[in-house]
């Protein structure tokens, strides 16, 4: 057991426990309203956590080189899963978005798994093609696969996840050594696509305008953000007390998933929010440190992977919090380890499982 990297495992343990507590708290009224069973989401979240732990145990037995070897297979599997969303009878639609595969027991969101697959693939690619990376051809290949995934996710449609996927790929590529010119071209292209995606869909424009002044359209498109902000404002420094949130009384939609941070700040105040950010910071620091260890040992794939996971957690956490406090327009993104949602939680825990395995391997080598 002393081979387990506690500086990674302990923050994750804290986050998952805290997440469970907050999912219970935030979801009671929504659950009661939907199912008459106030702990419906809380109990399901426990099951997801158990599945996540199972996933950590399984991945800790798999040598990390396995991923480096079969990265493309994993990516193709992920792409196929993304395709099944569009198959009638299997795909599951909510509010006009086809993001889920119906697995009877729960609904799997394959775009969450795609994050893991993409990180593995990009890391593996960088490892194999390091020398060609700066050349145009070497640079374009992973982008073609990225655009395939992006197109599939955008078709769901899910702009938020698409952005995350692109960003994580770009950041890893940038770090691994693409030229500045390529990087700028890439960024401009992505921003252009994102802008056109926004302006081609009227509801995205509504989201954007309501983001600028949510109270202008309080009863309409600004409702969700307004209520999220009310939650943050009401919490002030120390919050209204655990379980005492008023916004979760059906005022704030998605209080236990995308907007759980707002409920956390309402109940535990700015202090609670900052402590949570510090725990995330500790986790990211530990992951980057492990990444550094890998580079020191010449394990470039593992180093890139730890780096990628740390960056993904950072980006998604900051995006989610940014959305919750009105810094970014509303996107359907979960708060890693905290939000209710099986695919997201299990995917992130799997990533942690892999990094723990990497850490274990590093310790054995020294």
């Amino acid at each position, binding site marked *: 057991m002393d081979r387990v990297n506690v500086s990674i495992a302990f923050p994750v343990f804290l986050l998952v426990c805290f997440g469970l507590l907050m999912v219970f708290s935030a979801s009671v*009224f929504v659950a009661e*309203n939907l199912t008459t069973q106030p702990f419906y989401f809380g109990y399901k979240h426990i099951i997801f956590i158990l599945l996540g732990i199972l996933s950590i145990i399984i991945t800790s037995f798999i040598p990390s080189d396995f991923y480096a070897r079969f990265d493309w297979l994993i990516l193709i599997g992920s792409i196929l899963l993304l395709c099944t969303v569009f198959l009638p009878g299997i795909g599951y639609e909510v509010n006009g978005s086809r993001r889920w595969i119906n697995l009877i027991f729960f609904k799997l969101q394959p775009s969450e798994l795609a994050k893991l697959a993409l990180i593995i693939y990009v890391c593996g690619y960088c*490892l194999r093609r*390091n*020398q060609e990376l700066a050349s145009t051809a070497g640079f374009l290949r992973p982008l073609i696969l990225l655009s395939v995934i992006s197109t599939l996710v955008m078709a769901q449609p899910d702009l938020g996840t698409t952005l995350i996927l692109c960003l994580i790929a770009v*950041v890893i590529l*940038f*770090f*691994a*050594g693409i030229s500045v010119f390529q990087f700028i071209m890439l960024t401009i292209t992505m921003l252009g696509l994102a802008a056109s995606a926004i302006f081609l869909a009227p509801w995205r424009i509504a989201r954007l305008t309501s983001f600028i002044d949510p*109270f202008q359209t*309080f009863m309409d498109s600004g409702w969700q953000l*307004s*209520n999220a*902000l*009310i*939650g*943050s*404002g*009401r*919490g*002030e*420094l120390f919050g209204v007390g655990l379980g005492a949130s*008023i*916004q979760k*009384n*059906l*005022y704030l939609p998605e209080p236990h998933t995308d907007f759980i941070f707002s409920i956390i*700040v309402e109940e535990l*105040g*700015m202090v609670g*929010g*900052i402590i949570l*950010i510090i725990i995330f910071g500790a986790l990211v620091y530990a992951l*980057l440190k492990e*990444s*550094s260890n890998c*580079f020191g040992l010449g394990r*470039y794939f593992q*180093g*890139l992977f730890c*780096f990628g996971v740390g*960056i993904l957690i*950072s980006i998604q956490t*900051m995006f989610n*919090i*940014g959305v919750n*406090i*009105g*810094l970014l327009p509303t996107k359907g993104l979960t708060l890693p380890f905290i939000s209710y949602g099986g695919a997201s939680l299990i995917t992130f825990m799997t990533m942690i499982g892999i990094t723990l395995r990497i850490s274990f391997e590093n310790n054995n080598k020294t």
Partner: protein
Amino acid sequence: MAKSLELKSWRALIVFFLFIIFLMLILFRMAYLAFIQDDFLNNKGKDLTEGLRPIKILRASIYDRNMIPLATTINQYDLYGLKGLEKDDIPFVISGNSIKFVENKLTKKSLIKKDLSLEELEKIKKLRNNYLEIEEVESRIYPFGEQFSNMVGFAGKDGKGLEGIELIYDEVLSGEDGLKRIYKNRNQEPFKKPEILREPYKGEDIVLTLDKDYQFIAFKNLIEGIKKFEAKGGSVVILDNKLGEVLAAASFPAYNPNNPNRKIQRNRVLLDAFEPGSIMKPFAYALALANNTIEANSKIDTDPGSLILNGRKIVDPKNYQSITAREVIAKSSQVGASIISLSLEGNTLIEGLKSFGFSKALSIDFPSINFGSINQRENISKHEIASLGFGYGLTASPIQIARAFSVFANDGILKDFVIIKGDYVYETRLLESSINQEVMKSLELVVEEGTGVLARSQFAKVAGKTGTTHKVSSSGGYDDSSYIGSFAGITEIANRSLTIFVTLDEPGLNRYSGGTIAAPVFSEIVDDIYHLSL
């Protein structure tokens, strides 16, 4: 493989730097929300989740002297269907086309059934249909309807007193609603116990001195008298002489206070000041006796049955010749009464009548109560003095006339009658006992052989005085064809000393004198009270 893959490379540092900047933005934004925008956001939140609601308190009741409710408030439950209610989900058979459906769904909130029974209420609650809404409304009930209508009055839908006792004691009865802050979720359901900001304050019940049985007797006989003598209206007031309390005050036309479309009718007992006519003669007589200007047995010459004063003629129906002062009252001689009045100084007569309470306030509070008036010009003419003696030149309400008559029943003591149980009854002696007895003798004579023989009762000894007044016409002067016939009587029955005053307004022209129309009504009332006491 590149060697440059390390976290201290400039590429990694750029990434970290961007992250730090974004993290700072997050912290600033959180602080901005928590410390600068907090009031604004809190208020926005309160607007959504909190609301102020009154804590309703039921209006207090009005009781008769035996605690029988005359006005009381109950909660009534009305069932409404909300927009979107399916036609098949309506739990009652509804009639009428006031409820509109489109595709079997209700288009707007509509009343389905008023005043649900408790069983129906339970049944609806069990349905747990969100489209059915029960509204609690206060409903003011007047169990005796018309009988007490002019007295008790009524309160409006908002529970505010609009007439009668309900109006004048509105503040006492209504109390004050409390105030609470409610917390509701987005489905408008409460999620937290309401916070009480102000406790409600219940009004005080009012107990009247009125007796529902006496009121019934008064009202019934009044209506029968009005029918029989084709009158337009009338009033009956019954006083308990010993207690100084009003037992009944009936007035017609009346209305049903329970009917929302009620048409208010005034309380004639308290509001209708009219010229009392011959009813006033005993008071001039009593004052003359008290001032020693005449004696009970002194002869008064009414020959030739008429008298000219200040160029105006006063006429008796016939020439009574020389009669005693007592007979003047019994026969109700105009000429005799004039002579009795003129034996007094004008001022003495006026002040004397005022001491009986004429033109004076009562200790009864009532909306637009009328205290009457009296002619007290400085250079009052002889004709005017004489007129006061037979009841013209002053106005008085039935309650004032009855109160003044009760002096004779109370051995010369004036009591200030009350209608609220427990109110203090002020009293003053006006007449020596011996003089009062003389007046009583004359009043007994009225019923024994005078104008009031129809007031006799087989069950009780009765004394009283009749009155017949010309009404003032709308064009000025007196109307020869419209009268008020009245009778004021005193009797002891059912262990009570009672003063009963009856007026009938504008009776048919066949019979209109107080002795022929009001006296029989009085007699019937006395008989009914006797039967009630058995």
